[in-house]
């Protein structure tokens, strides 16, 4: 992620590029393409394992599988919160495009708060699974795959929140280039889209 932090920073090479897209934005696109495969691998792993403890007889360990414990209304709500953060992200890019740093900060902080709410919801959900339902990371292959996948996504959201707040801090006393906000926005929207996939594949599809 440090490359992203750098992106916020350095106006050194503002020469025209061959594609017309700035280096920083292109690098973010390439990174996101790479990240797709990271989530792809994790999602595949979950799909392979999600029912295995319940379906295969004679396995060691508990046969509790994550789908028994999903609280769809609750997760739908946190998913909605995360999706709305994409809206506030767009609004902040829009604000800085108009040169309005104040509103940009407002919307960035809103985005970060919404992302934080999502993370809080995930922590709450994890706590219920682990403490109340007795299904932890080490319980069986399905629970390991579930926590690894959603945890990886949570880590991405957390890094996104840090990036958003960094932009806010860096924006004091100077005007951010709109594209810096846009690049962070790319990452943020990507993380949202991945959640749409995870929510559908993991939670909704039985």
């Amino acid at each position, binding site marked *: 992620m*440090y490359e992203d932090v750098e*992106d916020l920073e*350095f106006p050194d*090479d503002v020469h025209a590029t*061959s594609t017309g897209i*700035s280096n920083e934005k292109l690098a973010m696109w390439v990174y996101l393409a790479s990240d*797709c495969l990271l989530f792809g691998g994790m999602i595949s792993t979950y799909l392979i394992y999600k029912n295995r403890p319940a379906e295969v007889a004679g396995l*060691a360990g508990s046969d509790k599988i994550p789908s028994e414990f999903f609280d769809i209304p609750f997760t739908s709500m946190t998913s909605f919160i995360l999706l709305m953060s994409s809206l506030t992200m767009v609004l902040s890019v829009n604000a800085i495009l108009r040169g309005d740093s104040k509103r940009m900060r407002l919307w960035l902080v809103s985005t970060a708060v919404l992302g934080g709410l999502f993370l809080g919801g995930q922590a709450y959900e994890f706590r219920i699974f682990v403490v109340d339902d007795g299904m932890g990371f080490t319980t069986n292959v399905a629970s390991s795959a579930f926590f690894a996948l959603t945890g990886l996504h949570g880590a991405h959201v957390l890094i996104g929140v840090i990036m958003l707040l960094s932009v806010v801090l860096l924006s004091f*006393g100077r005007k951010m280039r709109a594209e810096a906000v846009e690049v962070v926005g790319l990452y943020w929207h990507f993380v949202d889209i991945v959640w749409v996939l995870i929510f559908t594949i993991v939670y909704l599809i039985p």
Partner: protein
Amino acid sequence: MAIIEDQRPLELITGQEIAPANPLGVFARPKATTGWRSWVSTVDHKKIGIMYGVASFFFLLVGGGEALLIRLQLAVPGNRLLSADLYNQVFTMHGVTMVFMVIMPLAAAFANYLLPLQIGARDVSFPRLNALSLWIWLFGAVFFNTSWLLGGGANGGWFNYAPNSGVVFSPGHGIDFYAVGLLIMGIGSTVSAINLTVTVLNMRAPGMTLMKMPVFTWMTFVTQILLVFALPVITVALLLLTFDRMFDANFFNAPMGGDPFLWQHLFWIFGHPEVYIMVLPAFGIVSEVIPVFSRKPIFGYPFMVGSGIAIGFMGFGVWAHHMFASGMGQMSILAFSLATMFIAVPTGVKILNWLATMYGGRIRFTTAMLFSVGLVGMFTIGGLSGVSHAFAPADTQQTDTYYIVAHFHYVLFGGALLGLFSGMYFWWPKMFGHFLGEKLGKWHFWMILIGFNLTFGPQHILGLQGMMRRTWTYTENQGFNTWNLVSTIGAFVIAVSLIVFMVNIGLSYRQHRRNPVNPGPDPWDARSLEWMIPSPTPEHNFDDPPVVEELDEFWHRKYGHDSNGRLVRIAKTEDVVQSGDATGVHLPSPSYWPMVIAAGLPLIGYGLIFSLWWAIPGVVLLIAGMYGWVMEPSTDPDAGHDHDDHEGHDDDPSAATALTDGGSAEGHESSDDTADGAAAMTTEGAPVG
């Protein structure tokens, strides 16, 4: 990219001033242009490339030493030189070292050094990230090898199959070092791949469309794309393995239903593109060397590029041919068998195009050319044995035998490594301002070629006779004695050839020190842009970005066609090369922070393996490094815009016109500019003349 108004470092919210030249009060802004400080703080793609090369050559000696141990152990039946456990460690470490610490970084050395030069750029798109990639890789590699001192190396084979890699079967720390070490190196490679991808897409000189890029640039570009998409998959596999081993997860825990196929698929989805990641850069090098020494343009350039792209695409669709013997089902085997046969087509296109490039050319057999021709021959053998195990029934017989070992050494040694050596002889004058000796170079080539075939040729026979791969020893009456001994002798011939190579480096350098003769910007009468600038490359690369009109732009500036369609020289080389004395060039400033960030990662690795206390200084370094990086502008505001690039180089402008030196390389005397007939301006001046 964020701030438009100025390039001063950021202020804190408190309004506190940060001294621009001394971020965080820790490091003075590095200013050295010579000495070790200039190397550890550099963001210059050329120095970074050279460091990749030096470090990976060191690891070549490490991995080579391990290979000699393997061959010594197998030289005679019933040998007890190594214990069975140590043997497992040695061949695993040999494989991982050669793949991740020799071939890949050696290719990265060429990519870093040449890619910006070949596209006419000042540097890569993110110079400091480039330094970060180097240091992360290097520290990761050192971290991985420290496992020898901390309880033993990894012992699961380079593909480290589950569930053998679990704590139950591999309780030592070797596999931990494998998982964490490869994760660290993977971060470095990913950053580098993104950086170079953006460089190729965005930093091309005016007029250089994608289809005017040299083939080496194209192949490196394809390689970076492969890395971008293949590395995250092995990252997933390694993360799962790390979770299993360190946090008691169950991904590969067989009693819980952990699936050994999961690892195999994840590993080979990475592992097969990895093969092309290793070999495509060498293909690119060969595609530069052969046209220059045949004095012909590359035959079928669009097909060369297209076949490279096709190999890249198809490389993602053939991974399961590594798993024909795993029982994955008939349909899968059929599909992957067909796909594997198809991928031989673009590879064959490349081989034929190289042959067609040489056909009818005025060939100069310099050492670089010999290595390239060697690659064409040896890789063809490796490719053919590869096709032989695209057929699943045959492969079932060959799986896990020495036939496979022979095959992939013909591909990776006879393919990748010979190509990389070819590149060294070819670009050495550009990188260091003097030639590598041709006489010793030819000794090097012939010894390595003979030694290589002695080592790995017999392994085809051993494999077909049924000698299993990874076997620790064998008994006297299995019929493996003779060829194993031959193979061991061959390995030592290779070792001697590497010594010859090192002696060659030393002697060439000494001769250069005693009697410096600049080879001039274009010692081989070459075709691509990097030969337009003085040797060694000035720090700022190009005085002015070249405006590109054609493929092989530099060649076309030197040569044209007369009314009969014959090749004629239209300009003297010294008139078209740049003098290397630009002023007003603004280069990114050096920085210590990439190294600081990278140093944090191995500490976190030790923390994960031994005690989380170790991770604390690692995390501190990581965060401090990122903070320092952010606070430090990438170009030093105190540095003048007049860049002095003459320090430490002997590239004064007259060097550009100091033409061929004749003495320091014997290999290029044979041809001249009149090679193809009437020459308009051949009277003097061409560096090769």
